[in-house]
């Protein structure tokens, strides 16, 4: 099947198998390997991307379901090399160790801050409920999101 999607600002058209998962489309067809796979069963959140502005676990969607959509992946968050405040926050506050969960965490946080620009630590923890991190114990992730929230609202 043919699909047309706008990925990180550029439209592209591809022929895909109907059963191809969106995450595999992004990684293997579009070559955007910053989106990771940690479970393939919509639990870990490593594959989180934004589809039409909504955080979506891209392992739960077929590529064909995204036909016509605008998709933002981690690679599109700093198009001109200028880090997004969330990326900067994760760097400043040591919000990552192995970095495997990080792209998904950042995009989930992106949506979180869009909905709630001034979250409490508790709200951040609740808001990231769909994203697992095995390295950090989450505390520095909470700080990273707070760091970004402070910069984004000023």
């Amino acid at each position, binding site marked *: 099947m043919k699909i047309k999607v706008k990925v990180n600002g550029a439209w592209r058209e591809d022929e895909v198998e109907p059963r191809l998962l969106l995450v595999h489309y992004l990684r293997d067809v579009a070559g*955007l390997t910053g989106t990771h796979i940690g479970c393939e069963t919509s639990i870990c959140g490593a594959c989180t991307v934004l589809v039409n502005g909504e955080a979506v676990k891209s392992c739960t969607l077929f590529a064909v379901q995204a036909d016509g959509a605008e998709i933002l992946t981690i690679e599109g968050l700093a198009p001109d090399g200028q880090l997004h405040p969330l990326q900067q926050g994760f760097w400043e506050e040591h919000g990552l160790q*192995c*970095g495997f969960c990080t792209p998904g965490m950042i995009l989930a946080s992106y949506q979180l801050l869009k909905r709630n620009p001034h979250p409490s630590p508790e709200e951040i923890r*609740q808001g990231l409920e769909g994203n697992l991190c095995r*390295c950090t*114990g989450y505390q*520095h992730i909470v700080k990273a999101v707070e760091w970004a929230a402070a910069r984004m609202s000023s």
Partner: protein
Amino acid sequence: MATPLLGQRVKRKEDPRLIQGRGHYVDDIQLPGMLHMAFTRSLHAHARIGSIRVAAAKAAPGVVAVYTGQDIQGQLGWVPCAAGIEGLKVPRHSCLAIDKVCYVGEPVAAVVAASGYAARDAADLIEVDYEPLPAVVNPEKALAKESPVIHEELGDNVAFVAKLAGGDCASLEADKTLKVIKARFINQRLAPVSMETRGVVANYSPGEDLLTVWSSTQVPHILKTQLAIMNSLDEARCRVIAPEVGGGFGSKLNVYGEEGMACLASRRLGRPVKWIEGRRENLQATIHGRDQINELEVYVRPDGKVVGLKCSIIADLGAYHQLLTPAIPTLTALMILGCYNIPNVFVQTTGVFTNKMATDAYRGAGRPEATYIIERVMDLVAHELNMDPVDVRMKNFPSPDDFPLALPTGVTYDTANYQRSLKKVLKAAGYSRLRKEQERLRKKGKYLGIGLSTYVEICAMGPSSRMPAGGWEFGEVRIDPTGKVTVLSGTSPHGQGEETSFAQIVADGLGIPYDDVTVYHGDTFQVPMGIGTFGSRTTAVGGTAIYQAMGRLKKKMARIAAHQLGVKPGELVFRDRRIETEDGQKSIGFAEVVAEAIFAKQLPPGIDPGLHEHSVFEPSNYTFPFGAHVAVVEVDGETGEIRLRNYYAVDDCGRVLNPMLVDGQIHGGVAQAVGQALWEELVYDENGQLITGSLMDYAVPKAHQFCWFETQNTETRTPVNPLGVKGVGEAGTIGATPAVVNAVVDALKPFGVRHIDMPLKPEKIWRILKQGVRN
């Protein structure tokens, strides 16, 4: 003068690529002509394999090859075990099962196809005739005479029995003034669950006769040697690269059958072969951790002084040995005395085969079990003698002047001040205030619990004499003609952040900017030798190798600079990109000395051109980081739900090079330890089916389940290495589990609770609240 970087909160060098999605993990590697591999795995815990029908799989679209155990016999070596234990039984462990399967998830056949989808589809088409055999999943039952024997050729299910004795426990039995406390603890089976599963790409290039392997591993050099042996290749023909690795926690300190199979397939097909583990496979067939039964007898004087400890450890090893499987429980025995110099000790460790996946090193690897035992024991002593758990610990600590302290277990602790860390954490937690609050709340029918853990761990592994495959580490520092510095390490960090801390060491030492230093690791063609990252060794052992290599380089540069300046080399210091006398009167630019060394126009006699030094550091002892933690929990009297309300940690990992990284290690470690105490558990049913085979069932903790961790440090440097660093990668995981369990048991004291086995799920607590304890 630039402020020193060591001891500062320096941002990580690793992060810019990772926060932009530009790091490359194994699954991100694409090679021309690459094929994909998938496995058909055993559905039975114990069964004989009859015929395997592969025709349908072979005929499926995109399939290039199918392999069974029969096909690879004699073509691929056994999965290796490096543990050296006297009398150890080692079952043959084929990369694909040959005539029998011994656990659910054991690989039986492999399919190689044009895409991952095609390979997985075809793997499902393979039909295996099994003749099921009775399975044994409980290690105590596996010891019984009537138990099914997993490896018939080994006679029974006992892999080894090891005894460790110090002092004289037998003499205590006659002493009627002593109180004897008995206990039985179960340390449940856990899954490491790195967020990146395992994965491997093998690319055999027939022209060069070269096998290149990208693997998500913690030990690229060990893997290179083992894969070369398994594939009968010279090591020079085998290159292993650990690219970005998405966490390991010990589970990637190993050599797995799937890695061997990817190499075999690539060698046969002359094309690159990729295998990426699914999460279900990861829970079934990546090593598990813990899984011990501990029976204890503790001898205590009426004043709370513990004088003897006897322990039987039954260690459930699973069906086969992986790289270090049987060695892990022996570390429990080694560290069973914790922070206390108990003069008489006897530990018998029995390693038992069961029809389950192998256990091996999971963060802490044997030491969390030891800490759990001794820290639960200290609380039991307090309980039985009606003492405060703080007083029991203070009573049994050695004095800071007693170090180095040789224990009856045979290890010698380097340095410590247990009293200081305990006092500090009690102050942070407001301990006496908490006790009063607890009393107040109890009167209202609310249950607050306060739990302590004072731990010591064995780290910086280690002296080669005590390690299966050497315990040294390699480091290299070289300066390029432009004056920029390249550092190579034989360690293989995968999230811990040593690209950063190694660069801090070198930038400070050479007096150059942090940005001028680039650190590489993980490629066996780039780094000539190495052991890897595990056992909290990377900075303490690997960092020291780099520090020593840098020292050699500085010596050489000082001689060149001294020759130019007309002073003695010993008078020179390296600072602010210059090499100069202390008073700054005689000074030469760093870049000038580099140019002189490399272009070699006026080198002093006896100096070779180039700036390129390496060092191999062999530690004389382990290091023994320690600390004190306090957990505060609330138990809901209606639902049995436990809320972790506060967590305070004071950790001493020797000298702190980067407090931000140390904090990160402690947080992550504590989170995993709390996970074990409260939620995590791998469950097999009595037929050996894994019940917790997905992340729906295996409870990896989420952000909202934790409270804020209040962390602090004390710094007691070690003399074992010149940096004074002890190591911190496992401290949180080792220290925190008993603090949480002690807190919950403390909360439930009014119900007569003396012990509850982990994980402390609400249902268990609810039953106690409703039905009382059956002691």
